[in-house]
């Protein structure tokens, strides 16, 4: 699964994207796995209420299932316009 990071999430984790081998059933499960990896992930995912997630390029919730998913992206609330 390809995992993407944007804005300060990208800065905290240190890479814009990476390939992740996971059996996580939901986005929340994936977040738990990443948090357990290293401090920089724990820092980026300290408060998921401050984050948004897109699964296969569609905005969704942290309880979204990951079966068959190719791309997950984490980022702060958007500031377009």
């Amino acid at each position, binding site marked *: 699964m390809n995992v993407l990071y*944007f804005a300060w999430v990208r800065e905290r984790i240190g890479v814009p994207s990476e390939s992740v081998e996971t059996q996580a059933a939901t986005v929340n499960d994936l977040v738990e796995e990443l948090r357990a990896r290293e401090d920089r992930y724990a820092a980026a995912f300290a408060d998921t209420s401050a984050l948004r997630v*897109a699964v296969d390029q569609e*905005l969704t919730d942290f309880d979204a299932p990951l079966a068959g998913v190719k791309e997950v992206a984490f980022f702060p609330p958007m500031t377009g316009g």
Partner: protein
Amino acid sequence: MRIIVQEAPFDFGQQAQAFASGRQNMGAIVTFTGVVRDDASGALTAMEIEHYPGMTEAALTAIANDACARWSLGDVLILHRYGRLTPGEMIMMVATAARHRRDAFEAAEFLMDYLKSRAPFWKREVTAEGASWVAAKDEDEAALDRW
């Protein structure tokens, strides 16, 4: 419908003219243009806009389709830039064409409200003292409740 995501500057006058021209069946054209605004102190050096290339156009298209489903519109344009912009530069524009002015106005406001909080762009302000990500505003999230 036209959805444009680009790094280069755009010619607002030309886009507005092209959008408004030749519309015998649309009586009302509304445009909105966003400009990089320097704060009172003149401290802003640049505004950097990051986006999510694979998702951005699809997200903007979905927002434009929502607007077309809610209002009677003849056409919609969304143009949004990314990259490094300086104060006074135009960041983006939307345009709507409708038979009646209320539809054109409301649809343009709707597009802007959704662009603010639902399109995958992130702004970073650069000043002489450093750079910081622009925080999403509660009022922008609240603005969505209107629709």
